[in-house]
């Protein structure tokens, strides 16, 4: 399991410190954060520095150009208060043009490579909830990628559409022998429109509506972990972290028939009138 550091943005500093201590106590070593997550970098800082040796630190940048990526890395190192980042990732790759830019002569990849040669970062990764085909292309074009982070859950896996074929990313990453980090494992769906449910009345901090009960969280964890990912990233609401950690502790696989059942359930729930009413 990977601790999604975005939750720290929703906590005051003492609670953020407790959260980090608690997560470390659960045996979690991989922490993931980003400059986009409000004050999460700053709030992770104190405990990160205290336990630097115990934490495998992932961070990201949305900059696609050389100078932007270099500056973004410097800023993150300053805000986190550390000298090195273990896994530095291109954050939220969405368009082919971005891949062109970041791999180009004046692109972010050059800044990443320089930082790696200088010892500021150790590994290079990529995160995306965009088109799986673009992620696979990035794996082909960035030979030093150590990991990819992308959405995986029964709902996306039930979609019979190349636009959601993240299983293909899983296969491609396995072929390339690189790590796979699953996000959105606990996503239930988009929030209702603001007209129906104003943002202030939402029950969770996530930008999507998460599954909230323990049984479903466990089922989702088991399903996603059973796809063979390297790690499952915790969702962005502090209330869910302990349940996910517990699910991770109890993980004992999920048999194929149950995996098919969850996918069949999602598939049929999406279409109001399914064409075929047996499974």
């Amino acid at each position, binding site marked *: 399991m990977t601790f999604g550091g975005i939750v720290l943005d929703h906590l005051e500093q003492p609670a953020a410190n407790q959260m980090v201590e608690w997560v470390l106590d659960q045996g979690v070593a991989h922490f993931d954060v980003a400059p986009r997550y409000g004050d999460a970098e700053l709030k992770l800082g104190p405990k990160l520095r205290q336990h630097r040796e115990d934490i495998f630190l992932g961070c990201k940048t949305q900059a696609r150009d050389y100078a932007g990526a270099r500056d973004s890395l410097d800023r993150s190192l300053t805000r986190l208060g550390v000298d090195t980042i273990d896994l530095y990732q291109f954050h939220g790759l969405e368009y082919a043009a971005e891949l062109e830019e970041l791999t180009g002569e004046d692109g972010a990849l050059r800044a990443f490579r320089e930082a790696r040669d200088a010892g500021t970062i150790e590994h290079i990764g990529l995160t995306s909830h965009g088109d799986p085909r673009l992620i696979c292309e990035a794996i082909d074009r960035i030979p030093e990628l150590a990991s990819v982070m992308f959405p995986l859950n029964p709902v996306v896996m039930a979609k019979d559409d190349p636009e959601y*074929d993240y299983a293909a990313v899983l296969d491609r990453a396995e072929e390339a022998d690189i790590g796979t980090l699953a996000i959105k494992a606990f996503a239930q769906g988009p929030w209702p429109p603001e007209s129906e449910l104003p943002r202030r009345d939402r029950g969770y901090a996530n930008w999507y509506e998460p599954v909230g009960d323990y049984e479903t969280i466990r089922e989702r964890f088991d399903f996603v972990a059973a796809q063979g990912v390297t790690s499952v990233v915790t969702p962005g609401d502090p209330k869910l972290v302990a349940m996910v950690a517990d699910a991770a502790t109890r993980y004992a696989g999920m048999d194929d028939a149950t995996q*098919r059942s969850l996918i069949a359930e999602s598939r049929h729930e999406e279409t109001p009138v399914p064409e075929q009413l047996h499974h």
Partner: protein
Amino acid sequence: MAVSTPVATAVDAVTVTDRVCLDVGAGHGDSTAALLAADAANVYSVDSDPGRVAALADRFDDRCTPILADLRALPLGADSVDVCLAHAVCNQVTPAGLWTLATELARVATADATLVVDDYTPLPADAAVADLFALEDATACLATGAPAQTFYPPGLVAAVFEAHGWRPAGDRVLLDPVPWTGPHLDAHRGAIREGAATLVPTLHRGVTAALDAVVSTSDRAGSMYSRRFTRRD
């Protein structure tokens, strides 16, 4: 790795490449699609509904031959099919019909044919959805004299086919549990309403009242199995 659909999981267990296949009760064609994806030489897709058979012709190329027929009287010659797939179809036939179906499949199958039978296990009595199916069966019995569907124990289905020369060749669990989602339940509720409308007024009212009392949201219950058989010695 992508998780296969139930029918693709069943098909994956048998050799389909370049073999002549029969999709028994083809419906909207998902089983035919799985057979074609597994490189079947061609698929006879048999269904008893003219609209569905016409739609099959639109959905597939000429490797699929849609056939409008009663499953218990297949318009196919003896020794003409290498792989028979009966996916979620035995539950639609009566015990007498099941026996006849087994006889027909034995007749059309070649000497080294494979048969795949996939279906639902009987529902646990305490499953919420069991009441809905019971009401549908009761309504169908009142309206037509036969239940709407019967989830036979897998051993009973196997015994019927074994009595017709098929030997067991393996099994898989396709779904566990079976997700009975809102759209499934709505379809069964619709069938109950349709059946009830053909009954005398008192029975119609009784069924409609009972329908209000049974489950209307989703449920997870029972499992779906796949059993393989061979004609080979």
